[in-house]
């Protein structure tokens, strides 16, 4: 592993922009295209938003963001110690949201899956959720 960084932020929505820009700045070391950076920023935004709205249900908590850079890959872990997901498979379904009253589109996981090359979800109800996402930079598509 060539480089890593760890970030801890309070689960406030005002930190969403900060989180995505920080991860993008770190990812810049791999010389990504504008589009690859936009993909990463969006995926991070989705995951962090989920921690705030679902993990901590808009109450105070800490969101942990760990990034690792390998030769041409960025690995991003986004962790909360909130509610946890009862049924991960259902949560990952496009258009499914457990909070329709908040005008959520239910597209968060779908976007993470589309914009990143790999995503793993680990969750324990009452303990928290960990998302691990990877993206290969500079891949010829």
């Amino acid at each position: 592993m060539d480089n890593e960084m760890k970030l801890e932020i309070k689960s406030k929505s005002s930190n969403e922009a900060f989180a995505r820009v920080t991860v993008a700045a770190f990812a810049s070391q791999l010389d990504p295209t504008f589009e690859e950076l936009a993909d990463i920023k969006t995926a991070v935004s989705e995951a962090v938003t989920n921690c705030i709205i679902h993990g901590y249900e808009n109450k105070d908590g800490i969101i942990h963001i760990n990034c690792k850079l390998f030769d041409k890959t960025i690995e991003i872990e986004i962790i909360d110690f909130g509610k946890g997901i009862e049924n991960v498979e259902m949560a990952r379904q496009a258009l499914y949201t457990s909070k329709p009253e908040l005008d959520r589109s239910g597209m968060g996981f779908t976007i993470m899956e589309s914009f990143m090359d790999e995503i793993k979800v680990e969750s324990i109800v009452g303990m928290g959720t960990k998302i691990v996402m990877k993206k290969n930079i500079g891949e010829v598509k």
Partner: protein
Amino acid sequence: MFVNYEIKSKELEIVFEEEIDHHTCSKLAIMSDDNIKKYMPQTVLFNFEKVSFMDSSGIGMLLRQI
């Protein structure tokens, strides 16, 4: 965010200038709603030309507007 209302065509153009995420979208939805109620247009044009970032919270907001 600002709006342009064309009286003749009764078209309301809503121009978004900021990043649209969970943090900004509730405020934007309210402002958007208020303007639509104020002008009661026949058509609404959402202008995203100046939007540098949007995630699925923005999609949720748009769906609600529609």
